[in-house]
């Protein structure tokens, strides 16, 4: 009689009911002495096994001939123990990353040593209690090949996650996110240009582990959405045994990681006086003024009158009496707190995990706030010996008090454009500068220099986004035969978002509406999924292991959007649309897509030595034309465990060694839902309804495909003390889904076509080591390094990109392509550019010109790093522990898109300038990289390498110092554990970048091509928290 047990996801153990001897004992942690529950004890060479109990005790029956026990437990190194008595106490050593760890893969699980693809894993302990809005922050620097970049320091802002380099120019470049087997809505649902991150609805303390499927063979089971990798999130589940209650709390403060330096009021006055004189010279050259003296007089008169205007009508600019640091007004020291309670437990039949959390976070930018409430219930019930069912449900409500996008005058950091000679409070009115023009009773229209963003917050204006979201799944598992199971799951992700905004009377200068402008928008995103698949798992003749999956999946996504707008409010006390006298807009729209898939995978392992995996997925997507609706995404991979071979067995140095290789095809369907069709859209004119062509049809539109290969070596040396995983990969993307720029004379700007190729190749190293492991001291390290080289190889001869970032054949995606700046002409202060035109002999003309149009664009920088790395160290001494993570990015450049305003030689007017502009050319003979200041005469402000900087940085990303109350104290208090800690995120950033923060891409500008572009973008958070975890 055999009984099947399904525990710990996939570990299949059978128990035999006959035996000769019984061995008992207790399993404890070598270091802490704590009992280890749930460890597997097997008699070596046989398939019999038991689990240890809560107190670490076990009892196993053995044959007389048995001589060794094999003990395995998650998080510990495997141990073989000789049978030399009937009572054996066993101690296990913690392993940083055990080869027997369960690894979640698509539609199933595997164990690390059987993996033939490339999968990075980040565990709960690295994620839990990270003081950040969204979990991606917590994986930054922790996984090789995963480049995490937060666009800017606004809360709930989109985070770019690029796995092994961007694979697409126009279609999506972000990975697929799957929570407990169900793909979820990710990405930006904002309607105000400042992108949001749907993943910030996930409570990161609920996450048990994150697996990142990086290579084609592991990701290909997700077919047409796998080209950018797949991020699998597994939430915590209950375990049989005593119920545990855990309460986590932290609180702290956040500050900006960096500041940019601007002119103070004396410098400002000097600079613009200089700019007036520079302009006077030009006035004469252009013939606007008869001679230099009259030109200087006129220009100085003008500048002085403006100084007086911007000094609130006073002459204080002459004395430097007013010296406002506007930047300080945009920033704030912001509190953050999180309260988190979870309960887990269960019996043989029922397992349960319940959690609730409240996150209350203020932004480092004024008025920015994020509050999230979330609750989770994960439950599984064994209803028959062969049938279990369960549900994972999450409810989240997040409210984001948002900011305008980086390109708006109302975005707080644009405040730096205001003049330091302008007082914060206008002495004429006693109100914030710009709030009131006493002569009209309305807000000022020409004072201060621009709309003062301080008027767009507080009671005057808001932009609040509220998300109510329910996501989760119900599933059942049926054991049809001992080796054949069937799983059916139905998942739903329902996201309801409202965006409620009001811009009051004081913002008239910004919004262009005198008496209030309100808007209310709703977005409903519904994504449902059903997966149905069989799993066959059997070992033949003790050496042939088969693990096969066959199934189908159906997914449907629908988005419904509506918005209404009104203006003319009776007063700012009224903020809802019912009060707006003029309804200025009403719209609704919807879109959706369907994905129908069939998938199969067979893993075969021979004698623990040779592993082969084959898989295929067939996806049908509504996004493509009828002719190319279905795509097939096959993959194959193989592994050879050398350490199981005779010649390496019992090698004391080498505990484990595996060679692996994989090949596979993945697809990308992240294009708009109706991209293949010719479309007409509506257009209104003077109250009449009309229609206009909006999209050309492309009946031949098909999948963008990436052919990936991966070669890796994975091993463990010195008795599992050091694990390493080294991978080399190539990813070749063909039939790019490209928004091809077409001749504008066609009436269209671009068309989605399958043109072009791009390649990524690189290598990754992950090393985990246990450096010291004694009773009192334990020191572990983890290091990851990844280098990716991206190259666009074919775009059909086009240069794509609307601004300075371009996609160009032969170059990495998104290179900065503009004129090469050559500094100021020593003779006259003109901005000079290297011509870089191709001479007849094929070389570049390196002479300079002051005529921008005479110079050629060249590659002036690359937003893609040469390499990224992370180094983590955890040191435990008795009850103290310290964890330090360094994270870095090297070899990329940043383009300061705001440079044409803030480092602009005064050419766009009176914007305050960055401090480096003081080095401007002043007189003939000056050698400087900063051209002469010339008020309203552009002098070197067109896109050029003038605004390029090195973007490399190294951060002390995370430091945690913790103290665990000693066991004896804890048990006296009748609690399970108590931990207090101090944690710092982004404690220190080492960089040469002179801007706010080198981790940046302006939110309104971000896409596949447009990266590394700074535009008044908020810096990242430096967060210091203290916290406690208490377990009962």
């Amino acid at each position: 009689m055999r009984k099947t047990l399904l525990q710990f996801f996939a570990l299949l153990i059978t128990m035999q009911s006959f035996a000769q001897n019984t061995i008992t004992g207790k399993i404890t942690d070598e270091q802490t002495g704590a009992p280890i529950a749930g460890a597997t004890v097997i008699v070596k060479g046989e398939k019999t096994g038991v689990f240890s109990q809560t107190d670490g005790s076990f009892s196993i029956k053995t044959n007389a001939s048995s001589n060794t026990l094999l003990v395995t437990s998650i998080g510990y190194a495997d141990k073989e123990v000789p049978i030399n008595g009937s009572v054996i106490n066993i101690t296990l050593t913690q392993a940083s990353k055990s080869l027997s760890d369960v690894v979640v893969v698509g539609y199933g699980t595997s164990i690390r040593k059987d993996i033939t693809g490339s999968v990075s894993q980040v565990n709960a302990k690295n994620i839990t209690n990270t003081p950040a809005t969204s979990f991606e922050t917590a994986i930054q620097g922790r996984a090789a090949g995963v480049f995490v970049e937060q666009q800017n320091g606004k809360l709930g802002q989109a985070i770019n996650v690029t796995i092994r380099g961007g694979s697409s120019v126009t279609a999506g470049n972000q990975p697929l996110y799957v929570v407990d087997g169900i793909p979820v809505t990710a990405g930006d649902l904002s309607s105000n240009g400042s992108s949001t991150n749907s993943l910030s609805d996930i409570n990161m303390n609920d996450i048990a582990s994150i697996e990142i499927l990086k290579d084609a063979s592991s990701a290909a089971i997700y077919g047409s959405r796998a080209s950018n990798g797949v991020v699998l999130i597994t939430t915590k589940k209950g375990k049989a045994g005593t119920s545990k209650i855990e309460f986590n709390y932290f609180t702290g403060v956040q500050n900006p990681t960096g500041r940019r330096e601007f002119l103070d009021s004396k410098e400002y006055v000097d600079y613009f006086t200089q700019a007036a004189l520079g302009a006077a010279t030009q006035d004469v050259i252009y013939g606007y003024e008869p001679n230099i003296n009259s030109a200087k007089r006129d220009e100085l008169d003008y500048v002085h009158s403006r100084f007086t205007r911007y000094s609130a009508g006073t002459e204080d600019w002459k004395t430097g009496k007013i010296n406002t640091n506007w930047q300080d007004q945009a920033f704030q020291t912001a509190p953050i707190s999180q309260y988190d309670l979870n309960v887990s437990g269960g019996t043989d039949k029922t397992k349960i995990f319940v959690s609730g959390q409240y996150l209350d976070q203020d932004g480092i930018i004024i008025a920015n706030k994020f509050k999230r409430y979330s609750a989770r219930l994960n439950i599984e019930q064994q209803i028959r010996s062969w049938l279990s069912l369960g549900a994972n449900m999450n409810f989240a409500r997040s409210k984001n008090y948002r900011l305008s996008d980086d390109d708006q005058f109302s975005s707080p950091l644009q405040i730096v454009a205001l003049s330091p000679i302008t007082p914060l409070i206008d002495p004429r009115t006693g109100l914030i500068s710009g709030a009131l023009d006493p002569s009209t009773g309305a807000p000022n229209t020409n004072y201060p220099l621009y709309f003062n963003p301080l008027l767009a917050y507080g009671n005057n204006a808001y932009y609040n986004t509220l998300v109510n979201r329910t996501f989760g799944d119900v599933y059942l598992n049926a054991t049809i035969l001992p080796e054949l199971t069937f799983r059916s799951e139905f998942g739903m992700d329902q996201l309801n978002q409202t965006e409620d905004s009001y811009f009051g009377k004081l913002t008239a200068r910004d919004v262009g509406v005198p008496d209030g402008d309100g808007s209310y928008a709703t977005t409903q995103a519904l994504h449902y999924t059903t997966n149905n698949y069989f799993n066959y798992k059997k070992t033949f003749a003790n050496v042939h292991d088969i693990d096969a999956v066959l199934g189908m999946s159906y997914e449907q996504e629908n988005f419904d959007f509506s918005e209404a707008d009104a203006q003319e409010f009776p007063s700012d006390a009224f903020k809802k649309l019912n009060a707006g006298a003029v309804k200025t807009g009403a719209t609704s729209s919807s879109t959706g897509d369907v994905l129908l898939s069939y998938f199969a995978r067979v893993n075969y392992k021979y004698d623990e030595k040779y592993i082969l995996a084959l898989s295929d997925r067939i996806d049908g997507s509504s996004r493509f034309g009828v002719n190319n609706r279905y795509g097939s995404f096959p993959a194959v991979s193989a592994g050879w465990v050398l350490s199981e071979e005779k010649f390496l067995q019992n090698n004391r140095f080498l505990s484990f060694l595996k060679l692996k290789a994989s090949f596979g095809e993945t697809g990308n369907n992240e294009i708009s839902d109706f991209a293949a069709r010719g479309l007409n859209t509506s257009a209104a004119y003077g109250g009449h309804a009309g229609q206009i062509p909006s999209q050309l049809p492309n009946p031949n539109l098909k999948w963008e495909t990436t052919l990936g290969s991966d070669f890796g070596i994975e091993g463990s040396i010195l008795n599992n003390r050091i694990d390493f995983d080294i991978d080399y990969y190539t990813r070749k993307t063909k039939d790019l889904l490209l928004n091809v720029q077409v001749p504008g004379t066609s009436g269209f700007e671009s068309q989605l076509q399958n043109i072009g190729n791009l390649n990524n190749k690189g290598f990754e190293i992950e090393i985990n080591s246990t450096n010291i492991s004694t009773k009192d001291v334990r020191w572990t390290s983890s290091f990851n390094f990844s280098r990716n080289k991206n190259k666009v190889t074919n775009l059909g001869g086009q240069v794509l990109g609307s601004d300075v970032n371009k996609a160009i054949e032969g170059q990495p995606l998104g290179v900065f392509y503009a004129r090469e700046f050559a500094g100021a002409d020593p003779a006259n202060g003109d901005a000079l550019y290297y011509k870089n035109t191709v001479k007849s002999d094929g070389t570049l003309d390196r002479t300079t010109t002051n005529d921008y149009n005479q110079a050629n664009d060249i590659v002036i920088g690359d937003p893609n790093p040469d390499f990224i790395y992370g180094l983590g160290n955890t040191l435990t001494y008795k009850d103290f522990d310290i964890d330090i993570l360094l994270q870095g990015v090297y070899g990329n450049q940043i383009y300061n898109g705001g440079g044409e305003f803030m480092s602009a030689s005064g050419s766009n007017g009176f914007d305050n300038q960055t401090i480096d502009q003081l080095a401007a050319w002043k007189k003939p003979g000056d050698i400087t990289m900063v051209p002469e200041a010339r008020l309203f005469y552009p002098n070197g402000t067109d896109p050029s390498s003038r605004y390029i900087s090195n973007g490399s940085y190294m951060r002390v990303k995370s430091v945690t110092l913790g103290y665990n109350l000693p066991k004896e104290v804890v048990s006296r208090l009748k609690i399970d554990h108590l931990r207090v800690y101090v944690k710092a995120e982004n404690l220190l950033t080492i960089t040469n970048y002179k801007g706010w923060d080198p981790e940046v891409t302006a939110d309104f500008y971000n896409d596949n091509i447009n990266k590394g572009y700074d535009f008044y973008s908020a810096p990242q958070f430096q967060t210091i928290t203290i916290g406690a975890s208490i377990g009962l």
Partner: protein
Amino acid sequence: MKKQILYILFGFTALTFFSCNKHLDTKPTSSIDVNDAFKTSGDVTGALVGAYADLGDDDLYGGQIFIGADLLGDSDQLNWSGTYEQFTQAHNKALTVSNSFVAGTWLQAYKTINDVNNVLAHLDIVVDADKDRVEGEAKFIRGSIYFDLVRMYAKAWNDGDPANNPGVPLVLTPTTLISDSSKVSRNTVAEVYAQVISDLKTAASKCYMATYDEHYIFATSMAAYAMLARVYLQQQDYANALQAENSAIKLAEENGYHLMATYTAAFPSADPPAAIPNTPEDIFDIEVTATSGLNAFNEYYSENQRGDIQITDAGLALYEPGDDRGSFFGDGEYTLKFENYYGNVRIIRLAELYLTRAECNFRLGSAVGAKPVDDINMIRERVNLSDYNSDDLTLDDILRERGLELDYEGFTLHDEKRLELNVGILPWNSPKLIYPIPQREIYANPNLTQNEGY
């Protein structure tokens, strides 16, 4: 029991397998498939409305194409203090090939032309009652755009040989797919003008002529004649310009259009801003409402908006004392012509028609419709200026009157070119006074040649 549940499971799974396939044919809802777009006469008239909407985009007749011309043609009457580098370049006569306003206007123009070409390609399904009007209005839009394109992006008619100078590409059929034939070359200036004249002549004969009281907001034959007169005037073809303008004026006067009593009344505004119907002086406007359209003149000139363009002392000094137009400024430097946020964009005002007729009559020594002095005095009387005597009137007087009456409305550059007047230190035919072909267009279509000097 176990078996029964399993059967149900398999049954359910099989069902999902076979019922899903048809869902892959998801239809768009927010836009419509192009195959469903031209089925009825109403679809075609709707497409014509769409063409007006595109014509009214801020890059095009929403105003930027005219503001660009005024900044480029300004010697010393305007001060540009805006943050938009694109217009800074225009005002400094230092346009770059990557100027996004230059590209935006080009793209929007050809987008609208494609809209119109779609309308014209489906004329056969338009009901007879609408057919002429639809064709006429479509050709009014196309002719007007090609006229503005050729005078912005190519050498002036009087600059060298128009039969040899490259103009802009003429695209006269709708685009249904992109192929090598989409990579068009530039037609000559003369070919473009010929097309413009042909389109506008058809428009003049086929457009509907509404009385003012009908408040017809679309192009009329009166508007087409007036636009045709602009074209001939640009070609220095005074006889044809006179004939066309006189036809326009006759239609206007017969149908209840007239100059407003005061200059201020010709540029009405509302507080709070609101859509105001066209005045009887408006021959053709782009409609702006709270929900559609945008008035770029308002955006750049109005003190209550960006206020990027101020009138310099030199500009203000041109007005005679007592001229109402000389006091139509806010804060002594902002023109009040464009104060209404929801104001229609005035493309053709009746005053222009009288001024053109006067100029042509004067040059030809004729008095078709009216004596030049009468047309000029009508303009002057309205702004409280004294009459000219017929004998004293000079061409310079007429041109000065034209300049003052139509200032900031997009005439400066084009008048300077036809009158061959210097712009600052640049000669009228300087390549710097011509928009470049946008860089993106050269990248996308290697058959296009760039303008001299870029």
